[in-house]
């Protein structure tokens, strides 16, 4: 057991009749949009949302906060197939992957001097669709990706992924940034979508 285990939502487990469930800070907003949730890897994940087909035709906004995230110092070159690796700086890297790859990734980074589970620290908003570039331009001055900087007046990382963009940002801004992103997508017919509408997240 590590003294930093209290940072890892993935270590929550059924015990003594308790069934812990993790929620993204955008969960309430997706619920208000009528989303259907499923338990996946200990998280309540919004998997479908009414109107998502129409939203995806413009700019679909999805919550990928349940993905596992590790901060590794120094930044690794890569961490294997299926792992999104973002070099924040030469001294800091961010790895994002599905829970099923956790053991493989942890073995990959086992020798790194500093590895921290930051899954709970960050939310991820995915914006996908033909109007995704315009939506991003209405959120941030950043234009070469991946990049970090001001996104709607908070500091975030923006990665180009899955034909769209991921915004990785502090979870305490989940409610706020969801509102802003959906607002920017709405004039084009965009809106919230479930994670299943995005297909496989790699």
């Amino acid at each position, binding site marked *: 057991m590590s003294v930093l285990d*209290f*940072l890892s939502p993935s270590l*929550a487990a059924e*015990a003594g009749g308790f069934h812990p469930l*993790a*929620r993204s*800070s955008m969960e309430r907003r997706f619920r208000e949009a009528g989303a259907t949730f499923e338990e996946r890897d200990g998280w309540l994940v919004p998997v479908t949302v009414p109107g998502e087909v129409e939203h995806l035709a413009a700019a679909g906004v999805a919550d990928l906060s349940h993905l596992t995230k590790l901060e590794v110092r120094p930044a690794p070159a890569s961490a294997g197939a299926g792992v999104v690796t973002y070099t924040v700086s030469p001294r800091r890297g961010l790895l994002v992957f599905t829970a099923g790859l956790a053991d493989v990734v942890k073995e990959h980074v086992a020798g790194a001097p500093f590895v921290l589970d*930051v899954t709970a*620290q960050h939310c991820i908003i995915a914006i996908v669709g033909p109007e995704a570039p315009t939506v991003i331009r209405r959120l941030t001055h950043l234009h070469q990706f991946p990049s970090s900087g001001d996104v*709607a007046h908070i500091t975030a990382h923006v990665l180009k992924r899955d034909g769209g963009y991921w915004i990785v940002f502090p979870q305490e801004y989940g409610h706020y940034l969801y509102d802003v992103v959906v607002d920017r997508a709405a004039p084009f017919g965009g809106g919230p979508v479930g994670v299943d509408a995005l297909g496989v997240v790699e």
Partner: protein
Amino acid sequence: MRLEPQPHERIDRARSVTFTFQGRIVEGFEGDTLASALFASGQRIFSRSFKYHRRRGLLCCSGHCANCQMTVDGIPNVRVCTTPIRQGASVKGQNVVGSLQRDLMAVTDKLGGPFTPPGFYYKTFIRPRKLWPLYEKVLRNAAGLGKLDKHGAREERFDVEYRHVDTVVVGGGQAGLEAALDAARQGRSVIVVEEGPEAGGSLLADREGAAVARELAAQARQAGVEILAPAIAIGLFEQGLVPVAHGNLLLKIRAHDVVVAGGIVEQPLVFPGNDLVGVMLPDAVRRLVNYWSIRPGERAVVLTVDDRGLRAAEDLEEAGVQVAEVVDFRRHAPGIVSAVGHKGFVTGVQLDLRTVKCDLLVMGGSPQPNYKLLAQAGARVEFDASRGIFVPTDLPAYVQAVGAAAGDVGDPAVPEPVLGSYGGKSFVCFCEDQSVKDLRYAIAEGFDSIELSKRYTTVTMGPCQGRLCHVNSIRLFASTTGLDENTIGTTTARPPHTPVPLGLLAGPPHEPAKRTSLHHRHKDLGGTMMWTGAWRRPHSYGPNAGEEAQNVHRALGLIDVSTLGKILVVGPEAGAFLDRIYPNRFSDLKVGRIRYGVITSDGGRIMDDGTVARLDEEQFYVTTTSTGADAVYQWLTWWNAVWHMNVQFSNVTGALAAVNVAGPHSRTLMERVSSDDFSNEGLSYLDARHVTVAGVPTLALRIGFVGELGYELHFPSPHGEFVWDTLLELGADLGVRPFGLEPQRILRLEKGHVIIGQDTDSESNLLEAAMPWLVKSDKPDFVGKWAVEQVAERGLRWMLVGFESPRGAMPLEGGQVVVDGRSSGRVTSVRRSAELGKVIGLAVVPAELAVDGGRFDVRVGDSLESMVVHLGAFFDPAGEKLKA
């Protein structure tokens, strides 16, 4: 009068559009502007001038002047000459008492002159002084532009978008399109910004030019050029930043290169009657004829300094207008020019000794390159006396000017600054109603620099922002003072290049609030949310915060403290590092133990406080105040940039939720949600233990801010609602209730616990904040050590003490401490404690009063109330409940 359909016209006669103008229905066509439709319907007066309320008609038809400003759908100051017609619009004149036709305020034109010279409000309406508010009200109502409807509510959406391209071309005329095409063919990404409804510029006013323009635009699009129209560049800033107004969208375009192809701004000629209705610039006439197929008059005289007027004359003849005379100043410049009018409409023009009858007078003055954006970017402008224009020079490296904007305007004649006169008003500044006489008056009064004169007369300060008056005013200045134009110089060009709505600059609203993972639960439970820095936190959950506090004493309370800053300090030298940062010591802290710490600045001032828990030999878990996390994180990293110690930091504030479970039943509840040992032996006061709460990995800190037995649970944020719900559910029979910030403040005050920033300020130090026990002077050094030593050496002047209010009077926080009739300190915190049955607080008082039982007065309302010093905790001073 509409002409017969022309192949190059822009209107679609198959699609009629109607709107109302001052209550009457006006019909136009798709492709019209509001102004062209009004003109075609017979409307000739479009506005009343700013000061004199003179009748004004169409002058430029290009969106440059203020002559056509009207109120459209409640929005004032809309230039209808460039506003596309739209179905159902409601259009009204403005700045009138009565109507555009009959404005009662026109009396100011007849009588006001002697009373309204430049700066008249500094001279004429100043006595008696006490009547100035009345004068001001009258003057403001008498002159001006449109009025905002104070009671009108309008929601309008504005957006901001960031763009990055290689080249932005400002101006979509021939020169601009050619420059864009050239850049695109070199593989550059290009945006063209055109202020008209379509690209083409002056080509569109030409009968054959429209087709050329459209072909050029098509080629540009095919080459990948993006053409934005209508779109106006409102500034040109360093590093290629060009903000563009594109409807309600503000585009912040960052370009490697900027090409300015803004063409020219036709200048009026200055002569008596030059503002009469029916006096127009050549481009206005050409647009009326060629864009909208309108005959602008029956009989015209054309005055021109170059070929533009000649082309206008040709178009007029094609349109069936009788062109009575064309005066080309290149051949012969008349000595005297004076427009003659009747009831504000031109009826003829005096040329030397002749008068030529006309109802349309076309005046083509100097073709002034549109240099304002270039000047904003830092270019110089030089006056070319041979052509009577200012030409931009010394452009910044990333800026290029092409076409007429660069000065490529041929060889026009240079008209006299004032074309002789028999009298009457010769307007230099149409927007502000400033005449030749006014400007000469100001110069005679000593406003002898162009910048001073501008501010005194307001010339160039109107809606046109100098487009139609800057050159003429400088030339007039030159001819009056005997100085040359380059010596006089130009006024500073500032953004915005054209008036824009404030909403466009403001953009969409943002309120980046931080919310804990329990935010919605607080609202579900009736919490009243408040701001704590950028965080939203619950103030309380019901009307009685005192009761919420008492429930913690009697039973059990839960408070969301997720906002606490949380920083990991990790590494072989982590302990030694913390010893340097904090006045007290942490390197000797045992694993699994917690110690309170206060961070001081280099000057020994209190910055922040929190707890430090040692997780293992090399890992420490530091908490900070809710609003101090980022500052403390920066402080730590900044100091290590100096010391280069083997330590790393990670700000995990948002990663963890934190809940304080406090009250006599808290142990019982913890034993229900965890199989770990929460006994006093298993988890003693100031212990930190890794436990599992309801299946969630948790760091449990046995600390107590609120004075009762309590546990502060730190666990992953995503499990916030789950853990909170579980605690509430399993604690229901124990009387568990949530409590908010206000009851927490009462509880901590009962313990005499300090809140940094509330009970301390930027000058507070540990010694005078009653925390000397934190200072370990035997350490070789720590940040602020020397400053603390200075305080000890000079002696304590102040002290933070607790107090009770014997009579129950409640001073205000910040209230004055009064000693011997002098202000001698302040109350920092005060509350009524239901548990203790008294008013208690903390205050900064003179050090000599800091004795138990000491007395001082505090101003409460108009009287002084006596307070009694109480040292130590008010509630459970021995800490028995905390350590139970």
